[in-house]
């Protein structure tokens, strides 16, 4: 009888602890490894502002302006678009983390990019937004701060010849997006 009581107590205690563990991250989304995501503060993805130079028909990066969104109003087939996304780590992490990057493309046939050798495509973390997930080759140490640059192998994306005129939105002529998300997953 006494053992049964202890058992019941332990069972309830286990349920409560597990529940509270997840409840603490109730606003996040579940990842493949069973943890939940807390957003913001620990890692940021940004890049320099892209400005179109009409005289040469190219995008140039403005080194004085860091942004988290760029809109490219003039895109034509075969275009090379300079792009330098980077990841900022403020160093407020107390434990080691593995750094992941998810890249989503609404029209993957139209835009081509190559990740640098520092990043490998990974299945270890489930994609949160249906994109491709890449893992960084170095772990992020506790309180490590700085900027990780050179995400793309030649700091550019390429528009393929599949792109069509904007007057044909139903045939690869509609605006499309490539978004990036970084994740720090506790490794200890």
């Amino acid at each position, binding site marked *: 009888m006494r053992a049964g009581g202890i058992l019941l107590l*332990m069972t309830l205690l286990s349920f409560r602890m597990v529940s509270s563990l997840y409840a603490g991250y109730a606003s996040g989304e579940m990842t493949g490894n069973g943890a939940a995501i807390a957003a913001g503060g620990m890692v940021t993805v940004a890049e320099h502002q892209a400005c179109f130079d009409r005289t040469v028909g190219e995008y140039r990066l403005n080194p004085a302006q860091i942004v988290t969104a760029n809109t490219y109003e003039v895109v034509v087939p075969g275009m090379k678009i300079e792009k330098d996304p980077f990841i900022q780590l403020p160093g407020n992490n107390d434990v080691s983390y593995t750094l992941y990057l998810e890249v989503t493309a609404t029209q993957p046939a139209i835009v081509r990019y190559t990740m640098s050798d520092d990043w490998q495509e990974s299945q270890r973390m489930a994609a949160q937004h249906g994109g491709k997930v890449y893992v960084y080759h170095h772990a992020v140490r506790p309180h490590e701060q700085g900027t990780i640059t050179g995400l793309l192998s030649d700091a550019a994306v390429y528009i393929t010849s599949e792109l069509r*005129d904007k007057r044909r939105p139903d045939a690869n002529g509609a605006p499309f997006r490539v978004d990036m998300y970084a994740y720090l997953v506790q490794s200890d």
Partner: protein
Amino acid sequence: MKKRVFRHRRRLILTVILLMLTTAHGTAMTAAKYVHSSNRAEHTYCPDTYDIPQIQRTVTRLDNGYCTMTGLSVTPSEDTDYPVWVRIAVLPLWENAQGTVYGQPLTADRDYTLSYNAEQWEWHDGYYYCRTPVYGGQATPPLFNGTHSLTQISTAPQEGYTFQVKVSAETIQAIGILDGSEQTAAGNSWGYCPTDGNA
């Protein structure tokens, strides 16, 4: 005796269940790791467009009744936000008021003379290519400038037909290369690009 054995078994079973639950709880604690997400870095790409270029030329009637064409430049639409290559096809012909083209083609130096601005245009396989790209709203240099012109020098072979010059202009993006190659859009579509001089 039987009661004692039963109690022992019950204790054993309960202990095993207790251990299993504790292990499960520990595993759950271990599997749940901190994950921190960044902002979303948004990159929106908007396909561009192009419009039919405008052709400007001057046609003058000479004292002898023949026609001469001067100028002839092409202006890509203002909406074109990038530099483009321009090429022109020029076709003199005899045509009547109903738009019927006379069957016999015109011959240079027998029916007309043509000299063009070779400094800023080059001829290749039936087209005149502007040597430099131009921008939306910006006119090309004239194909016929200064002393250059396309001038009629003979009368129509049949009454009712007059000297006409059909001009068609095309533009194509002067930026970008074909996927995984060094070929320009002009090289790929036109088979010729003034920059590289080959297909």
